[in-house]
């Protein structure tokens, strides 16, 4: 159960998140910075709700928006080359 992977992009397990949360008594944002959960290719769109849910389970507090640099997941992650006008990503 503890080996369940929460963030697949950065390969962060439930155990990593629980251990980090217990050791540092931290917020969801701090969990992200310490473990890199939610900082991979998908932009945290897949695992962020799971990270928040784990934190809510552990601390009993809902993740709020009062912390600076809050979560702003992209609608769709794209490469810089796409932004530069090349749709093929070259």
């Amino acid at each position, binding site marked *: 159960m503890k080996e369940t992977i929460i963030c*697949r*992009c950065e*390969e962060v397990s439930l155990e990593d998140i629980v251990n980090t949360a217990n050791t540092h008594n931290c917020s969801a944002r701090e969990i992200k910075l310490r473990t890199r959960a939610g900082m*991979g*290719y*998908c932009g945290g*769109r*897949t695992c962020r709700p799971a990270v928040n849910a784990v934190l809510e389970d552990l601390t009993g507090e809902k993740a709020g928006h009062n912390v600076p640099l809050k979560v702003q997941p992209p609608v769709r*992650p794209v*490469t810089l080359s796409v932004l530069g006008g090349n749709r*093929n*990503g*070259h």
Partner: protein
Amino acid sequence: MGINRILNHPVLGPVENKKRITFTFDGQTFEGFEGDTIASALLANGIRTLRVHEETGAPRAIYCNIGHCFECRVTVNEADIVRACMTPIQESMAIESGKVQPAPFNTPPEEWPRTYTEYEERNNNQKDGGTNA
């Protein structure tokens, strides 16, 4: 035409008159039907591992299959970060799986390469290749 292909679906009926498309995956040639995504064509051919995790080398495959999670990203005709689940196969497409990337900062700082030449030597003189694991 693939070991996992359902050729006669109880509801959707038989697969008929589909144009066959040839493509390569890591240099090996495969066949799929027109309208297949890269992921479905490879799955039909029994290939489930589309890439490995860049750092740990753990296998990755289709996860959400709707273009959301980027777990199935592959390299297509040398373009990076192409989602296999969202990209239809085309004739002669050259698909490469994701490989383990060098991770020079996973070791203690004392063991880090001091110069770029040293870094290259440790990675068998491959500029951006090698695993340094």
